[in-house]
């Protein structure tokens, strides 16, 4: 699958590692050029990956998912991260990816992003949300603590 869904066309240019697990792009906005890194890390269960992304400190080079940038481009950043999901699952088509926000505010932001594009995302991915007790198919207006996606084959 080389074509991204049209909603994802507005994303930043991305550099991808050869193993398709690490991505880097630059957010452009009033706060300047902010390098962002996305990493898919396999966790203890084989075939399951954690999706993490954060900002690179321009001085230390340290990557943090707690930095609040407010560069005015959150939608484009989310679209870019979503685009990396396509690239990653193009290579790892059986992978299951878990995503959580580093803060509750961010988790809510991700939920809103999924909600606003749910029908389109569901064309290509199975999406689940984590309630207090189990995983369920993602529904609107439910507060989830984490999200899980798998590419539809």
């Amino acid at each position, binding site marked *: 699958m*080389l074509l991204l869904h049209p909603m994802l066309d507005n994303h930043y240019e991305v*550099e991808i590692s050869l193993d398709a697990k690490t991505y880097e792009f630059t957010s452009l906005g009033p706060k300047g050029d902010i390098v962002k890194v996305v990493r898919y890390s396999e966790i203890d269960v084989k075939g399951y990956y954690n999706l993490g992304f954060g900002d690179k400190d321009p001085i230390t080079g340290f990557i943090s998912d707690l930095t609040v940038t407010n560069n005015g481009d959150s939608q484009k950043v989310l679209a870019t991260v979503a685009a990396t999901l396509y690239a990653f699952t193009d290579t790892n088509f059986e992978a299951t990816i878990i995503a959580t926000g580093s803060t509750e505010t961010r988790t809510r932001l991700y939920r809103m992003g999924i909600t606003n594009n749910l029908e389109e995302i569901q064309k290509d991915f199975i999406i689940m949300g984590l309630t207090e007790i189990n995983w369920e198919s993602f529904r609107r207006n439910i507060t989830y603590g984490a999200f899980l996606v798998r590419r539809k084959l």
Partner: protein
Amino acid sequence: MGRFWFVENYKFVIMKTKKMLEKKKLPKGFKFNATLDDKYADQPLFKDKVERSNHILKTIGLPKL
């Protein structure tokens, strides 16, 4: 042959794999950067999130997909 052959053959395999991967088509707006494979090897990226994901699967279990 021996060690020299092994090292040279290994380098050839890696180079050929990299070239094959670079030819692999990517979504629009993506390009390969081989340096990214090890660029952040000195940092445990998103360690807290990885641990949280492990904790979730351990306590809640796997989803029924």
